[in-house]
């Protein structure tokens, strides 16, 4: 497959993170043109027409999100850049901020112009030290060049950009959790509505967009809507609500693969293509058993489903939560799905913010049960209990405030429904006396250390 990278076009150059190199590649020309020729309204229209959907996981149409901002409301609009990338298996925003921070920043400035925001906060996870250094240096260079500050390039448009560091909480990647955290409180997601576009940061209209989404905005400005829509998957003809999956996409690859790394292609390449052509196949000459298609939350795709295109719709057709971040984690044929599910549930239990009971208790008890199963005290009915948790926690069943619980639920549902035989075999083999038990059993805490 021939594909000329766009999002990653700069990164192999020496000093790719500096303004000089970025501008030598045509950087900030789009910004100059937009400030002269386009109104914010034109820009919202353009991004709407492009079909750009958020790259952070949920895939919400970006132009539509911007258009929800109230018009002519006096007072500030705030812009938040979601750079809290914490979804297990996901790391492509890190690469963008480390190696091409100006691309992200031009996207931020353009998007703030479109949304009439005069302050942008880059909510950055604290573990990304090099990103912080590079992004701050890029911001400083932009102030010096007149791309930030008062009356940018002689226009009426003014913008300040600040980096705001997180402190190690996954839920800060949820947009209202991010807003609460920015305001200086615990990152408890808010009940919606009101949506952030109406009442968000500091109770003002607010837009929250992901790093990669903003980089796409910059390229749509440079190359136009027809270019953007020339790649990807068109809407399903039978589904009038499907906006399609257009544009370039960054793919991450990790786990049991020969060449872990980040790759760029059009939206909609298949898992098989990604693993075989980009990743050089499964490590140690083994076969793959399954992948996580787009960050842990999206669940599991079994080997028989690897021809599924990585676009916004197709992963759902095989029972996954969605495209997520398109960062794929590969598991080889020897890796136990019980270990996968234990690791997954432990993560979500650790990161549940504790606000909603179904998520706080559900994730916690799932870990307890899986630990008991790992220690040879599993019962076949435990699998049904786990599925009951998986089917009942989250915003899709309607029992929680935010989607963290859906992310916890999907690996449970997919792992047990797609690999039930493997779980049953483990339980029967390790607990020959008790696997048929149905009456209550001791909790794992009373079993003592391993």
């Amino acid at each position, binding site marked *: 497959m021939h594909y000329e990278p766009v999002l990653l076009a700069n990164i192999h150059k020496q000093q790719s993170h500096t303004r000089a190199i970025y501008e030598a590649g045509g950087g900030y020309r789009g910004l100059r043109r937009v400030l002269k020729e386009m109104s914010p309204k034109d820009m919202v229209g353009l991004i709407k027409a492009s079909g750009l959907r958020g790259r952070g996981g949920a895939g919400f149409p970006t132009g539509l999100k911007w258009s929800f901002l109230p018009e002519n409301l006096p007072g*500030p609009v705030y812009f938040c850049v979601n750079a809290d*990338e*914490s*979804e*297990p*298996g*996901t*790391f492509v*925003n*890190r690469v963008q901020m480390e190696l091409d921070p100006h691309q992200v920043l031009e996207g931020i400035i353009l998007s703030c112009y479109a949304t009439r925001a005069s302050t942008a906060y880059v909510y950055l*996870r*604290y*573990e*990304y*030290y*090099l990103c912080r250094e590079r992004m701050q240096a890029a911001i400083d260079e932009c102030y010096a060049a007149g791309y930030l500050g008062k009356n940018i390039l002689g226009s009426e448009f003014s913008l*300040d950009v*600040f980096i*705001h*560091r*997180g*402190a*190690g*909480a*996954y839920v800060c990647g949820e947009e209202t959790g991010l807003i609460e*955290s*920015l*305001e*200086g*409180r*615990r*990152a408890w997601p808010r009940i919606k509505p009101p949506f952030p576009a109406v009442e968000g940061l*500091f109770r003002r209209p607010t837009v929250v967009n992901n790093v990669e989404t903003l980089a796409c905005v910059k390229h749509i400005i440079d190359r136009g809507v027809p270019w953007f829509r020339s790649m990807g998957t068109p809407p399903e003809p039978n589904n009038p609500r499907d906006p399609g999956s257009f544009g370039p996409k960054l793919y*991450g*690859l*990790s*786990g*049991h693969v020969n060449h*872990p*790394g*980040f790759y760029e292609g059009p939206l909609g390449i298949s898992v098989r293509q990604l693993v075989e052509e980009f990743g050089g196949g499964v490590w140690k000459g083994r076969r793959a058993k399954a992948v*996580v298609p787009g960050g*842990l939350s999206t669940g599991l795709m079994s080997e028989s489903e690897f021809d599924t295109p990585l676009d916004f719709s197709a992963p759902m057709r095989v029972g996954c939560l969605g495209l997520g971040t398109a*960062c794929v*984690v590969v*598991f080889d044929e020897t*890796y136990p799905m019980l*270990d*996968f599910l234990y*690791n*997954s549930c432990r*993560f979500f239990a*650790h*990161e549940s*913010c504790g606000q909603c009971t179904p998520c706080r208790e559900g994730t916690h008890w799932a870990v307890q049960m899986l630990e008991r199963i790992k220690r040879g005290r599993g019962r076949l009915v435990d699998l049904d209990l786990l599925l009951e948790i998986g089917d009942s926690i989250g915003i899709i069943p309607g029992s929680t405030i935010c989607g963290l619980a859906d992310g916890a639920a999907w690996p449970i549902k997919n792992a047990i429904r797609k690999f039930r035989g493997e779980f049953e075999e483990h339980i029967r083999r390790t607990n020959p006396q008790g696997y048929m038990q149905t009456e209550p059993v001791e909790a794992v805490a009373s079993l003592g250390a391993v």
Partner: protein
Amino acid sequence: MSLTERLLNDDLRRQIAGQLPRYPTKQAATLPALHLVNERLGYVPPQAVIEIAELLELSPAQVQDTLSFYGFFKQDKPAGQYRVWVCRSISCAVRGGEELLQHLCEKLGVRPGETTADGRITLEFAECLGLCDFAPAILVNDTVHRNMTKEKVDVLVNTLTDNPGP
């Protein structure tokens, strides 16, 4: 309280005050303030919480509430000179991350969250560090260590133990 009992010195107070113009509310400077104090002291003891609250015109309970939510800030005693974060999330775990954590626990004689007796190393587990392409990965203070093995971990620990400090 007299000036001599203050935990946060004038320089640190100036740095915290320098964050305030970025935000329309003072409370929004809570995380930046906690980070600044943590960078200086290696932890955020209750007295620092009280002083941050004063600076931000908040109740100490509000600052404490925020602090306690985030896993990053220690309160009982300062972290060691080196805080060693071993990723245990899925991409690292499938390439040996959990074994590395176990190996470090045994080698250093501490459990995750604890500091070695000499005050050098605080061992921590981390949830996904966003270094999945370099799994298994370890973060030591602000330095990334990629594609780690038990052998590389042993070399790393020796370096940390021999070095006079960051």
